[in-house]
C-alpha cells in the first residue's frame, strides 16, 4: 500500500526564498471578510493574549482593521504585534459576523515574516527551529535516550534560553525509544491492519469487504513522543473493523502557521495533500488524533494554499473520536464497558481551543461520563496558554502561564489528578502547571473497549 505514496520533497535543505505566497486569486481575497466586520470587539474580549497583555492590540486590529488600513497602492508594513498572536483561533469562533480572523492573521503574519523580519535574526531562526519541530524530533528519535538526557540538561537549557530565547522553565517532551511508524511497520503495517480489521468485522457480523478504511494522520507528536496515542488509535479503529493505512506525511503546519513560516508549511502541506488526497480519492477518510492537525487539514489548508486535492481532503478529514461518534455506536459500547487498571481514574479534561473551533469541545465529556470505572470533569473553557510553540518562547513564557492560570486552578479543584486532552501541547502545559499525568481520550477508549491490547 505505502509504495503508492512517494512524496516529492521539494526544496528541502535549500535556502529559504520568499515567494509570492498569496498570488492574487479570488480564493484568498479577504475583502469580503473585512466587509463583514462591524467592529463589535467580541473577538477582542475572547482573545486570551489580549486578556493578559495590555500591549497586544487584539484580533480585531490584527485582522480586519489592519487589512483595511493597509490597502493602498504602496506597500504598507504589517505591525510587528502580529507575532504576539498565539494563533489559538478563538476569535474565529467568537465572531458573530463570520470574519475569517485567523486567515487574516495567518496571511498578515506570513507577509510579516517573509517581507519584514530579518532572516538572519535569532528570533527568526528560533521560530523556524521551533516550528520545524518535526525535523528536531526526527533527529532526536535517532538517539532518543541521549536526546532525552541532553535536552533537559540544566546548562544546555540555560544556554538555549540565553542564545535562542527558548525558555528553560519547561521540560522537553520525552522521545519514544521506538517511533510510532517503526512500531507500525513491525506490526505488519497496512496488510496487518487489514487482517485485523477483517477479523473484527467477522466478529461483529459485518461483511468482510465492508468499506471501512481510514488514513491516519498521526502528526509529529504521536510518532516521536506519545506513541501510545497512535497505537491506541490503530487498535481502537481496528476494533471497530477499520483498515488503517499510515501514509507518508510531514508536519500538519500548525506551528508554522503560528510562526508565519508559510513556505515551510506549504512544503509540508504539499506532501500531506498529495498522499492523503490520493487516499481520499480511493474512498479513505483522513483521521487525525491531534485536534490542531485536523484543524490545519480542514480549515487552514484550503484558506491558505491552492494545492490540487486540498478541498477534498479538507472535506474528508475528521478528528478520531469525532469520526467514531459519527459512524459507530461508540456511545453504546462505552456505556456497556467498564474500565479497570491504570486508566480507571478521575480525569480533569481540558478542551483545546482548536477542538472548540471544530465543535468538539464536549465530545470527551459526553462520551466518558457514561463509562463505568472512570470519571471526567470539564475544567472550563479557558485557553491552556501554550498554543504550541508560543509558550516555549522565553519572552512569551510568563504570558503563557498567566493565560493557563485559570485552567490550572480548575484542574486543582477537579476531583481527578490525571489530566486529559486531545492536544499534545495543551497536555505539555497541563502537566507543566499541575504535575499531573495527561492522557488522550483514545487511550481511555482503548482501555475500555480493546481487550488486553497486546499488539
Amino acid at each position, binding site marked *: 500500500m505505502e509504495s503508492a505514496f512517494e512524496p516529492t520533497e521539494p526544496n528541502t535543505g535549500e535556502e529559504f526564498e520568499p515567494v509570492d505566497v498569496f498570488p492574487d486569486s*479570488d480564493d484568498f481575497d479577504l*475583502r469580503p471578510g473585512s*466587509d463583514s466586520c462591524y467592529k463589535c470587539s467580541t473577538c477582542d474580549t475572547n482573545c486570551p493574549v489580549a486578556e493578559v497583555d495590555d500591549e497586544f492590540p487584539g484580533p480585531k486590529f490584527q485582522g480586519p482593521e489592519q487589512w*483595511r488600513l493597509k490597502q493602498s*497602492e504602496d506597500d504598507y508594513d504589517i505591525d510587528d504585534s502580529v507575532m504576539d498572536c498565539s494563533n489559538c483561533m478563538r476569535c474565529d469562533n467568537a465572531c458573530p459576523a463570520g470574519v475569517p480572523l485567523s486567515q487574516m492573521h495567518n496571511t498578515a503574519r506570513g507577509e510579516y515574516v517573509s517581507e519584514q523580519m530579518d532572516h538572519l535574526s535569532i528570533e527568526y531562526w528560533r521560530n523556524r527551529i521551533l516550528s520545524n519541530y518535526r525535523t528536531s524530533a526526527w533527529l532526536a528519535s535517532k538517539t532518543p535516550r541521549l536526546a532525552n538526557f541532553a535536552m533537559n540538561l540544566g546548562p544546555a537549557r540555560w544556554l538555549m534560553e540565553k542564545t535562542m530565547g527558548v525558555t528553560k522553565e519547561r521540560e522537553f517532551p520525552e522521545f519514544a525509544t521506538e517511533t510510532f511508524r517503526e512500531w507500525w511497520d513491525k506490526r505488519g503495517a497496512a496488510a496487518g491492519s487489514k487482517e485485523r480489521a477483517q477479523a473484527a468485522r467477522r466478529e461483529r457480523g459485518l461483511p468482510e469487504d465492508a468499506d471501512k478504511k481510514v488514513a491516519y494522520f498521526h502528526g509529529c507528536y504521536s510518532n516521536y513522543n506519545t506513541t501510545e496515542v497512535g497505537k491506541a488509535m490503530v487498535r481502537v479503529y481496528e476494533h471497530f473493523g477499520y483498515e488503517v493505512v499510515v501514509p507518508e506525511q510531514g508536519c500538519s503546519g500548525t506551528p508554522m502557521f503560528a510562526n508565519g513560516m508559510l513556505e515551510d508549511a506549504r512544503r509540508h502541506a504539499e506532501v500531506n495533500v498529495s498522499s492523503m488526497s490520493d487516499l481520499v480519492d480511493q474512498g479513505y477518510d483522513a483521521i487525525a488524533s491531534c485536534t490542531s492537525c485536523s484543524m490545519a487539514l480542514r480549515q487552514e489548508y484550503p484558506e491558505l494554499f491552492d494545492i490540487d486535492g486540498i478541498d477534498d481532503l479538507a472535506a474528508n478529514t475528521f478528528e478520531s473520536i469525532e469520526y467514531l461518534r459519527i459512524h459507530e455506536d461508540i456511545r453504546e459500547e462505552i456505556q456497556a464497558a467498564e474500565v479497570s487498571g491504570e486508566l480507571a481514574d478521575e480525569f480533569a479534561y481540558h478542551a483545546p481551543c482548536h477542538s472548540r473551533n471544530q465543535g468538539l469541545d464536549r465530545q470527551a465529556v459526553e462520551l466518558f461520563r457514561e463509562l463505568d470505572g472512570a470519571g471526567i470533569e470539564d475544567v472550563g473553557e479557558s485557553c491552556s496558554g501554550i498554543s504550541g510553540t508560543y509558550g516555549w518562547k522565553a519572552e512569551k513564557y510568563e504570558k503563557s502561564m498567566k493565560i493557563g492560570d485559570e485552567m490550572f486552578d480548575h484542574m486543582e479543584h477537579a476531583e481527578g489528578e490525571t489530566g486529559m486532552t486531545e492536544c499534545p501541547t495543551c497536555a505539555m502545559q497541563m502537566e507543566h502547571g499541575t504535575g499531573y499525568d495527561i492522557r488522550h481520550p483514545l487511550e481511555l477508549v482503548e482501555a475500555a473497549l480493546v481487550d488486553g491490547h497486546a499488539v
Partner: protein
Amino acid sequence: MASVPHIAVIGGGSTGIGIARDLAMRGLDVTLVEQGNLTHGTTGRMHGLLHSGGRYAVSDQASANECIEENKVLRDIASHCVEMTGGMFVKRPEDTEEYFEEKLEGCKACDIPAEVISGEEARAIEPHLARDIDKAITVPDGAIDPFRLVVANAASAEEHGARIETHSKVTDLVVEDDEVVGVEVEHQTGPDKKVRGTEGGTEQIRADYVVNATGAWAGRIGDMANVDIEVRPSKGVMTIMNIRQVDTVINRCRPKGDADIIVPHETTAILGTTDEEVDDPEDYPEEGWEVELMIDTLKELVPMLEEARTIRSFWGVRPLYEPPDVGSDDPTDITRDYFLLDHEERDDLHGMTSIVGGKFTTYRMMGEEISDHVCDQFGIDAECRTAEVPLPGSEDFSVLRDYMDEFGLRSPIGRRSVERLGSRAEDVLNTDGPNPTVCECEAVTRAEIKDAISQSGANLNAVRIRTRASMGNCQGGFCCNRMASELHGEFDEQITREAWDALLQERWKGQRHALWGQQLSQAALNYALHATTQNRDNDPADGEPVDFAAFDSGPTPTGTSGQTGVVTDGGTRDGD
C-alpha cells in the same frame, strides 16, 4: 484707493480658497467668507478624482489639456493630498471599438500618457475587473482628498495674511454707484464657529474688489446686485464602499453615461455618478434608485461590487455653466470648462467678477486666472507662485519611518497619520501624553484630533474632514463620543453635546442610503450602543422627570411561608 487693495472672496470651496491663496501670496489683502465649513458646498461632495484629463479627451480637449497640466502641478505642490493610483479606461465587449480608438487618439492629442493594455494585463493590475473586459487604456488618474487640499490652501492663505471666515454668510452685496464695494456678512455665533472677526452678528466688509466663487450658488450672489448668472446646477450621486475593490481609478470607456467611474479613496472606493439638472443646489431629492443604479451598472466592470458593503452615499451639485447662447438640454453636454464673468464688461457692474463652471482638478489654474484678472484691475504686476510653492504639509517629507520609535504608533496607524499630516506629522504627533487611537477604522489618534480642534474649534464635522475620524466602516458608531470627549476642558458640556449631536446627525445622513446587508447590521449595533450607553434612544429620563409612581411593584408574592418575593428592583431582600 489704499496702497494694497482689499479683495473679498465669496466661497470657501476649492475655487475660492485657491483664489484667496493666490492673491494673498501676491501680496494683496484678502478676506474670504464661507457660509458653512470649508468645503461646505460642492468641494466636500465630490468623488476625489485627480483627473488625468482622459475623461475629457474626446469631448472637451481644452479641459483635458488643463487637467493633465494641473494633475502634474498638484502631485508636486499637494503631495500629501494626492495618491497616484493610476487609472484606466476599460472597454467591455458592448462598448464600441471606435470610441476606444477616439479616446486613445484624444489622450495622445492632449499629451496625456496613455497606453493600451490587454484585458489580461488589466486584470493583472486589478484582479477584480470583470473577466470579459476586452482591453484598457492606462492614464495617470489619481485620488485626491478635497478636504485636506482646501484646509491646506486655507492655512497657506492665512500664513500670507488672508482672513478666512467660515460660518459667515453673505446676506447682501454693498453696491454704490454701479460698483460693488463690499459684502454684508452674517457671522454665526458660538465657539464651534471659528470666527476671526466679529463674533456673532452682522458685519459689513468693505472691499476694493469682490470675487464671487460660490459655484452652484453664484446666481444667488448675482441676484443681490441684480445681475443674472445662469448656473445650471446638476446633481450627482456618489456611493462609498467600505473597502477598495480596486486600487486604480476605473473608468468605463464609453461616450457618456451614468455610473462609469470607481475611485479608490483612502480606505474606501467611491462609485460615481449621475448627472441631472436641479433647480435648487440646496434642495433636491436623494433617491434610492440612484444608489442602485451605481451598483448595478458598475458591477459590470467589477462584479464583486454587487456583494460588497456600501457605507454611505452622498450627492453633490456641479456648478455647470454655459454661455446662454449654447442652450444644451442635457446637462452631460454642458462643458466642464470654467468661465470668468467680468460683470463690468457683461452687466456694467463694476468691482466684481464671478467664476463659474470648472473642475476641482483645475482649481489652482482658475485661481491663477482670476487673480491675474484682479491684479489687472489694479495695475499690479505680481507673479503667480501657487504652482511652485508646496502647500503646508506637502513640504519635503517621507512616509517611510519607524512609527513605533518616532511616535509610539502601530505601523498602519502611524503610516495613515503621516500620510494625512504630511510634513506637519512631527509637530502634531510628537506629544507628551498618551496618544490612544480615537477612530480605529481610519487610524486617527488623539493628537491628530486635538490638532484639528485647535484649527476649527468645537466643530466636530470640521474635525472630521481634517482627520477622516468617523469616516470608516462603523461610520462613527464607536468614535463620535470619543471625539466629543476630546473637547473636554476647553468647551463646556452644552457646546460639546451640540457638536456631538451635529456629528452624529451628519454621519446618519449618508448612512440612510446604505441600510441593507452589513451596513444595516452596523447601524443596528450603533443604535444599540448609543441607546444603551449614551441614552440616545429617547430615554424618558432625558428631559421630563420620571414618574416612578407609575411603575407597579412587581408580581404579588403568592402564599407559601418564607417566600417573600423580590423587591421591585429585581434583587432579593436583605436577610432573605
